[in-house]
């Protein structure tokens, strides 16, 4: 059966209608990307699927015992809270040092274990968030604009990492983006949302769809192609540590 399904989902904040008539299904191992302009309700949609906000109409069904790995768009850590990476990975369930070292190595930041979360660079921080999500051995990874703070090579290598993880673990990936140009090329489906589902399909189909064009405009005149990342070189910054 599918991991998560929504039927006729509607969501309101007060009198404001944020989402309506959303039918959605994600299967095991599928990569689905949700795109929509700012304020289109895509983050609310993700939060509804997570169970953070209760829908005002329709139903959400989750597979029994579903394990979710959630990577938030950003995470503000109060400067009053001293939080080493190792402690963060062990929230709320204690992990063994070995498991934490393994997952940090997997996401490409083996050196940050003892560092405080607030001292990480944007790219490292995002990878640590992903590492924590992976430790839950998720059936589905949910990513809310996971690359918003990264530069283009950073985005490419982050998405490559997600693809590798998906291949290794077989988990489904549901991510949200405001920009179709940086959508993972490996997406099985792209869903374009603006209060409701405007159109959906393979990435190149959505890009050509009139609904998508109407929503995002034709301003670029086709100058921007769907983001294709290069596998032959790596721009990722790994600043050498002083001393």
């Amino acid at each position, binding site marked *: 059966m599918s991991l998560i399904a929504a039927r006729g989902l509607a969501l309101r904040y007060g009198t404001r209608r944020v989402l309506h008539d959303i039918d959605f299904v994600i299967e095991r191992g599928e990569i689905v990307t949700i795109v929509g302009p700012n304020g289109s309700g895509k983050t609310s949609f993700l939060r509804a699927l997570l169970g953070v906000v209760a829908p005002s109409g329709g139903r959400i069904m989750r597979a029994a015992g579903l394990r979710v790995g959630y990577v*938030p768009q950003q995470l503000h*850590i109060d400067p*009053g809270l*001293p939080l080493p990476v190792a402690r963060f990975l062990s929230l*709320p369930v204690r992990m063994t040092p070995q498991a934490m070292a393994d997952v940090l190595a997997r996401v490409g930041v083996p050196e940050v274990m003892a560092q405080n979360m607030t001292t990480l660079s944007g790219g490292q921080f995002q990878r640590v968030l992903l590492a924590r999500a992976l430790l839950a051995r998720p059936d589905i990874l949910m990513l809310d604009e996971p690359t918003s703070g990264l530069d283009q090579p950073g985005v490419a290598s982050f998405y490559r990492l997600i693809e590798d993880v998906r291949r290794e673990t077989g988990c489904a990936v549901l991510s949200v983006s405001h920009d179709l140009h940086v959508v993972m090329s490996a997406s099985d489906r792209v869903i374009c949302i603006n209060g409701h589902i405007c159109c959906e399909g393979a990435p190149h189909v959505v890009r050509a769809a009139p609904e998508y064009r109407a929503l995002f405009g034709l301003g670029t005149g086709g100058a921007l192609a769907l983001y294709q990342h290069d596998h032959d070189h790596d721009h990722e910054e790994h600043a050498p540590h002083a001393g």
Partner: protein
Amino acid sequence: MLDDFLTRALLAGLAVAFATGPLGCFVVWRRMAYFGDATAHAAILGVALALGFQISIFLGTMVIALMMAMIVSVLAGRGWAMDTTLGVLAHSALAFGLVAVSFLPAVRVDLSAYLFGDILAVSRFDLAVILSGAGLVLALILWRWSALLTATLSEDLAHASGIDPGRERLVLTLALAVVVAVALKIVGALLIAALLIIPAAAARNLARSPEEMGIAAVVIGCLSVWGGLQLSLVHDTPSGPSIVVVAALVFLVSTLGAVLVARLRQRFGASG
């Protein structure tokens, strides 16, 4: 041993420090400082009602503190502007309490004991209530520690991990009300929030993890209680403010120490 009023005072103070240490950390991390103030100030209203209806002071303050904490919690959830709302509620509760006490007929009410604490007057019964109240809060926080920490970090992350942040908020609200009720006798309504915030803030300078910060806050709280008690005995100063004065001095020292260490590190480089 418990016959000695000093022993009772010290035990009661230490017990409260064990509860306010870790709870105070959450107050700091969640930026609930003013929230703690509002709840504590409402305690005076609780005192007035307890005296008026002739019920236990502990019970009266706990019920009113809990009500205040719930109201604030609900209003916060509805997106009211928090510092204005809390400012209105905290001071209104205090003012209503003070006015209500003045209506009590012919009772000689020593209000300063409730405003500033009266740790040297802790009776055996008081001690029993304070020990169990503080023990309850400490147990509650230790039990929920990981869930509370996750919910403090991010409500969405908590949800994804199967934790209900609303329930964790309720745990903190409840703990806060109990702490207000048992700490009233120690530092008084005006300074309960200080006992929550100052040891935790001082501990922040020394700690590298949330657990270290909680333990350090307990140690600093205990030190403040002990030092304040000595100060109060030797110089006949009011006990509650004396405890807070010592805590403030510890905060000052730990902050200056942290600044100094950072300077030295900078000067001698990471290679050292």
